[in-house]
């Protein structure tokens, strides 16, 4: 069964039709590459799933229940996690503090609750181990490599039982070796049964890790097919418009 199902979703800002009648479904444990040129509507689409925008038309279903989001926090409560392009990390905090940012564990009661450092370090350490990342909970994010920073941002999505993780250009600004690390992290999420939507410009990454590719052009979905049945050449053609639709 599909984890997330979008039916005839449209979004317009005034006269501009950013997303036009898009339907798609994403299954658990599936990595879907969402591709398209700048302005194709992919970030608008993702922002609707993340609760930043409300669709002008159409419906969204999560696990068969209709999903109506007013704020990004609600998306997270429903098990939709986002890894932002800039990762949204605080350099002056430890990796554990970043993982738990906004969701700190505390002990004590009433107004006398204090941060539970022990439990947060331990839980963060467990998540990094599950991700097979060498990031350590007490390390400051300031001194981390791009791959480690990605691991911290991805570890956030594993705090609660995420159903679907949206990743915005996770490999856009890191070195080649670190890209391998990030793709590895994506596979870790998939193996845990989490659906991953990978928004990316980088063809090799999508073909390395995704099960399916969805291509958008000018607000419309122009392709949705298994990676095995497609090719980088075909996807490039779809993105640019050389191939109209498949």
């Amino acid at each position: 069964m599909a984890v997330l199902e979008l039916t005839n979703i449209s979004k317009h800002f005034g006269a501009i039709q950013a997303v036009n009648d898009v339907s798609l479904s994403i299954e658990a444990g599936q990595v879907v590459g969402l591709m398209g040129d700048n302005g194709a509507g992919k970030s608008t689409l993702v922002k609707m799933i993340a609760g930043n925008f409300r669709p002008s038309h159409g419906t969204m279903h999560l696990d068969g229940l209709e999903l109506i989001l007013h704020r990004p926090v609600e998306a997270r409560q429903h098990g939709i996690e986002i890894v932002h392009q800039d990762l949204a990390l605080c350099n002056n905090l430890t990796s554990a503090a970043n993982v738990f940012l906004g969701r700190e564990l505390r002990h004590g009661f009433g107004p006398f609750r204090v941060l539970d450092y022990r439990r947060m370090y331990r839980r963060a350490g467990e998540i990094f181990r599950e991700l097979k990342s060498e990031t350590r909970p007490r390390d400051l994010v300031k001194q981390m490599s791009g791959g480690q920073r990605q691991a911290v941002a991805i570890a956030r999505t594993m705090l609660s039982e995420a159903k679907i993780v949206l990743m915005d250009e996770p490999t856009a600004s890191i070195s080649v070796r670190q890209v391998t690390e990030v793709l590895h992290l994506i596979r870790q999420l998939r193996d845990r049964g989490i659906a991953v939507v990978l928004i990316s410009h980088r063809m090799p990454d999508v073909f390395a890790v995704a099960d399916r590719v969805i291509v958008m052009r000018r607000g419309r979905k122009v392709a949705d097919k298994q990676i095995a049945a497609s090719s980088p050449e075909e996807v490039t053609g779809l993105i640019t418009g050389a191939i109209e639709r498949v």
Partner: protein
Amino acid sequence: MAITTDTFDEAIERKQHSWLATILGSQTFWVLIAVILASVFLSFATDSFATTKNLYNITRNVTFVAIIALGMTVVIITGGIDLSVGSVLCLCSMVLAVVMHAGHSIEVGIAASMGTALLIGAFNGILIAYLNFPPFVVTLGMLSIARSLAMVASNNTVVFQFGPDHDKLLALGGGAWFLGIANPVLYMVVLALMTGFVLRWTRFGRYVFAIGDNEHAATLTGVPVRKIKVAVYMISALSAGIAGIIQTGWLGAVTTNIGAGMELQVIAAAVIGGADLAGGVGTAFGAIVGAALIEVIRNSLGLLGINAFWQGAFIGGAIVLAVLFDRIRNFQQSE
């Protein structure tokens, strides 16, 4: 890449730097060393420094700047600034004085004074957090407004009679209830411990640091950025109000020019103590140490018979020097 032979527990316990490296790398530590060295030097170089009376004076003088520097440090950690503290100190002192002069008890006076501080802090904070005013502009405006209100409240007179609880107020600020330590010093120590605790151990403190480093990230991760910002300006104003109450008790009189220019001393203390005006860095202990260094410099120049006109040059030099150490350290790290 890191060593892969760590067991799970080792990985959790492992820190990037030993505690010794952390201390040696902190600006606050070196400023503390400077304060201690200066004090030792002055004890030998002058007969008057290491006397009970002078130490009593120094420790007490430190407190007014130090208490406000605690609040200022919290604001600076969020990446903000509060220029209104000197005027808020004046207004809160005046509210206390006028209310008590009118015959109300000390409790009512203090409540009115602190209420005024919180109101001003909330006003600053709401403009900054919800209407996106630059903190510099809002608090610069408040610097002018608060002092003017103090003049209005007192009709620009000196208040030195505080009604039925006159003696209580003077004991509160001028007494020494515990081991001969001046009362203001005790308040400072308690407030510093509270500030340090809040910054280190509460979720609020964690958010203060997060906002200062990356406000956008804090917003995206669900931190209530606006509420926290309002709260830090309320804390800053409250610290100025508390300092004002204590100072009133110590001086025994309130004029409309007390606290003039104090905001710059307070900011200097915070910065010397290691707070970074770019946000994200600062400690309560640093605020105290920074204030102490300024006071020791001021006191020593007097005792050594150096013309008082040199004070500004030495304090300014201390600001630049303290931050210079930090720059050098960052420079080494980035290489």
